[in-house]
């Protein structure tokens, strides 16, 4: 089983998914992220799925789960780079991401986290 690497950039944890996700990798990623957020005190998590060709209900649920976990540590989650075909399929599948924030690309994802962070400090 391959593990998805988690990078730390400033106060943000970046997860860039570049592999065809096994269910076990999904579960491992959730655990790794929880530990990493708690250890680093990150204020945001970005999941980059621009390389992901399919998101089924199991992977889709991971986004919501990660967002909930992050929230417990007072961190925000943004999913970036979802492909059009994946988005259309998710809508047809009937899957909502449970209010997870999304952005077109990494740059905009960072911007959103910045704005949210400022809002929290104010």
């Amino acid at each position, binding site marked *: 089983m391959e593990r998805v690497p988690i990078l730390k950039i400033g106060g943000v944890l970046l997860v860039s998914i570049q592999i065809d*996700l096994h269910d076990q990798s999904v579960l491992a990623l959730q655990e790794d992220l929880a530990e990493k957020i708690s250890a680093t005190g990150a204020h945001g998590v970005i999941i980059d799925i621009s390389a992901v060709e399919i998101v089924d*209900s199991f992977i889709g649920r991971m986004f919501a789960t990660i967002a909930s976990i992050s929230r417990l540590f007072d961190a925000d989650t943004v999913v970036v780079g979802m492909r059009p075909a994946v988005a259309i*399929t998710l809508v047809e599948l009937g899957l909502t991401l449970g209010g997870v924030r999304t952005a077109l690309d990494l740059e905009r994802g960072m911007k959103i986290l910045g704005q949210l962070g400022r809002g929290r400090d104010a």
Partner: protein
Amino acid sequence: MPPRSEGPEVVPISGDDDVVRVRQLVRTYAQQTKLSLVDQTKLVTAASELARNTLIYGGGGFARVEEVSDGRRAGVRASFHDEGPGIPDLTLALADGWSSGSGLGLGLSGARRLVDEFELDTEVGRGTVVTVVKWKR
């Protein structure tokens, strides 16, 4: 004209890796049949849901993937076979179960929405076969 089938391929489903393998195989067939990118994605996603059902609820089994034609258009057919407990309540199994958090609901009903043809053959105590087809638009 009899339906043209090209090299049906069978993959066992007995673990996590196999779900990924089924996805990759279905994608290969979908690309070969020249389904549009959106249709490829829909079919592969449906296959992923169904393969996981076979693994988790059917206790494992196998998937069969092939190219089909009805004389006018080409398509990809994928079927998922298990010898598990079967599905006692079909209506419940096919209802949208996402909100209640049960995995089975969205798996079956969601997969059905992603394909053009969906057939479910189940017998309690004997097993389940789900067959889906996606036609080229």
